[in-house]
Structure formats: C-alpha cells, structure tokens
C-alpha cells in the first residue's frame, strides 16, 4: 500500500478505531505519513453480514471522497 501511495495512486487503509494508532505508526514507518486511514466502527469480526456491509458503506463513501479530491 505504501508503494502504491508513493507511485501517486489514490490509496487508503481501512481500520477500526482501536487500530488507528498502529496504522498511523505503520504509515510513518513506511514513509507515507499522510496515508489516509479510513476508520470504521469496531469490531469487524463477529458481525452479521448487514453490519459488515454498513461498515463497508462508510469506508466506500470516504474513499470516493478521496478519489474526487485526487481527480485531475
């Protein structure tokens, strides 16, 4: 993901709240501190399919914003 980011592609990592700091630290380690982290509600495991889809909807909407922002 960091490599894709460095190549200029629109990229993001989806994580749930408790993993935000880990994601931020990893983004710094891999040289992409501005890598967008799209935060979804925790937990992801042990959820019914409609709950997973609801989290996906949140992430997709945020990613579409990024795509529009980066659009030429």
């Amino acid at each position, binding site marked *: 993901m960091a490599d894709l980011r460095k190549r200029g592609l629109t990229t993001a990592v989806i994580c749930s709240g*408790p993993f935000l*700091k*880990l994601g931020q630290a990893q983004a710094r*380690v891999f040289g992409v501190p501005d890598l967008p982290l799209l935060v979804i509600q925790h937990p992801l495991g*042990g959820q019914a399919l409609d709950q997973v889809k609801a989290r996906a909807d949140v992430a997709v909407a945020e990613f579409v914003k990024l795509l529009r922002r980066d659009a030429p």
Partner: protein
Amino acid sequence: MSNLAQLLAMPGASFDTDDDFDAVNALLRDKGWSDGLPMVPPTEQRVAAMLAYCDRPWDAPIAKIAPRWGEATPLRLAANAVMAGCRPEYFPLLMLAIEAMCEEPLNLYGVQATTHLCAPLVIVNGPVARELDINAGHNAFGPGHQANATIGRAIRLALVNIGGAIPALGDMSTFGSPAKYTYLVAENEAESPWEPLHVERGLPREASAVTVIGAECLHNVNDHESLTAEGILMTIAGTMATTGANDIFYAAQPLVIMAPEHARTVAGGFTKAEAKLFLQQHATLPMSKFSRENIERRLKVTYKDRYANAGLDAPVYAVQKAEDLLIAVVGGAGKHSAVVPTFGATKAVTRALRTADGKLARSVADFKKQRVAS
C-alpha cells in the same frame, strides 16, 4: 564501526543521567523502554562487556524488528541485554534468537501486532544450551535460572524497545500473556529418547541452535494412568483439540512438549514421525462441537472442499499435516506433557549459532576469541 566510545557519541545513542539506579530506571520508563520491571542500568562499561561476545560490527543491523521495523544492531541489543540482566556470555544466543525470529516465515509482524496472545517461544538445542546452563528440566518454563529468565526478557525488551511492540500501539494483543515477559527453554536432550529438535530440523548434532515458534502459553496434559504410547498420545490429542485454537484455520505448526517420562513411554511404541501422525489423526473434534456461525462462516469457507457438504460428525483437525506438528522433550520428572498452540499464520524457524565467518560455534567463547584475534 566497533569503537564503543565513537558509537555512543552519535546523536541519540546515549543519555546522561544521575549515577543512580532509580534515576536510570525513571529515565528508561519515561522513554517507554521498559517491560514494567526494574532494569539494570545499561552503562557503557556493562554494554562493552556484552559486546565483547559479538564478532560482528556493532552498528550494523542484524535484522529489522516489526512492527516498527527498527534496526537491531548489536549495540542496541547489548543495551537491552544489560537491562534484562543477561550475563555477557548470553549475548551470542540473544543475537541468534533475534535473527531467527525476524526471518520471514515466522511472520513476526503478525506475532507482535495481533490481538492473539502469542509470543516468540525459543527452544535452544546443542552444546551451548548446556554451557549457558539453560534449564531444560524441572520448571524449565518457570523461574529459577538466569539464562532462561534474562535471555527471554532481553528478547522481549528488544521486541518492545526496537520493534515497537508497545501495548495498544504496536502490540494489540487483547490479553497479552505471561510468556511475553520471557519464553525460552532448552530441550532436554539428555533425557529425550529421540534425536534433538535441531537435528530433526536438518542441523548437525554438534550445532547449537534456536527454534523459534509464534506460540501461546503451554497447556498441561496430565496423564498418570496410561501405560502405552497410544494411551499417552490419546490424552495429548484430546488436549490439542479445542474449538478456539487459531491453528485449526491455518497450515499451522503447533508444538507438543513431552516431559521425559511420557516421551519414553511414547518412544517405546512409536517413532517421532509415527507419534506425529497419530496425534494429527486423533486430535480432532466433530464439527458439531463448533458454533453454527463458525461452521458456516469459517470452516465451510476455509475448508470449502472438505466441509461444504459434510455432516456435523465430520472431523475437524487441530493440525492439518502430521509433518507440521512439532514435538520437543522438555521438563523434569512427572507424568506430564504440554500442548502449545500457535498464532497459526506463522512457521517455526530453526537457525544455528555461527561465528561471523559462517562456522558452527562450539562455544560462546568462540565469539570472544575471534574478536580478540581480529
């Protein structure tokens, strides 16, 4: 560069503080360089004594430790070894263990950062295990031996201080584990009826080696009644088969530890390979023991071909392949074995202790001699 004074003069390499145990510990804790226990102040003199057992450049990384991917230089490792209370002669083994656990198959990033409670377990084989008095007998996983306690602790300090395995930041383990303080033993080769673990894994008998496993704590197997190999193995297999183990869902390498009494009974009827096959075939649960959700969302997805149309009496295996199962002999007297599940997405790594010229080390003194000679 292997001049300690020059290395310590580099920015951030050393800190000045009051020459006082409490002041040094306060500084280390403030920096976050801690496992929570008091630490031996890593003075220049103590670090130098540790590095006297290092025959490689002191500032050249031997590995990068996930999840921070921090560079594990001998200098940094030596400071952590001092803080943990290691004797200088332990240092070559600490270096080896860190190198081994940073090899890709172990998946240290996963082992460190997961919500699972695993920690790298180090099993030491060969003459250096005896030279350093690493406990392989009674209470091998418990307190009482400086080598077990402090090499394992130095590993943990390196994982935290260099690797960034900081709780709720780089170490997301839901529970953590006592094994995250220290988790290092030697195999009880003297009382094992089988070839040592490092020989089974392809190294010469005269080698000293570590085998690293991304492991849970051990779970005891009490069997005071079985008189046969099959009996002991049935009890172990029953303990291996649990519904909540990660290993079920991966090509995993769980570990079975047999204390010498159990091992001798098993070896009376089985080779090690045969024992592994028996355990793999018998460490099963009927699918009915799993929750409906786990059957539908995990078993029938992970093993679609096997379970898509299977009935509730279909066996679910604790380990997928017999040859993936690890068996080691550890412990003292007593009719006990132990089962050690793993993180699952991890492979054991075995690595031999070698001097910088690539030769097998016969003794930790080899590292000191070579340095003096150079």
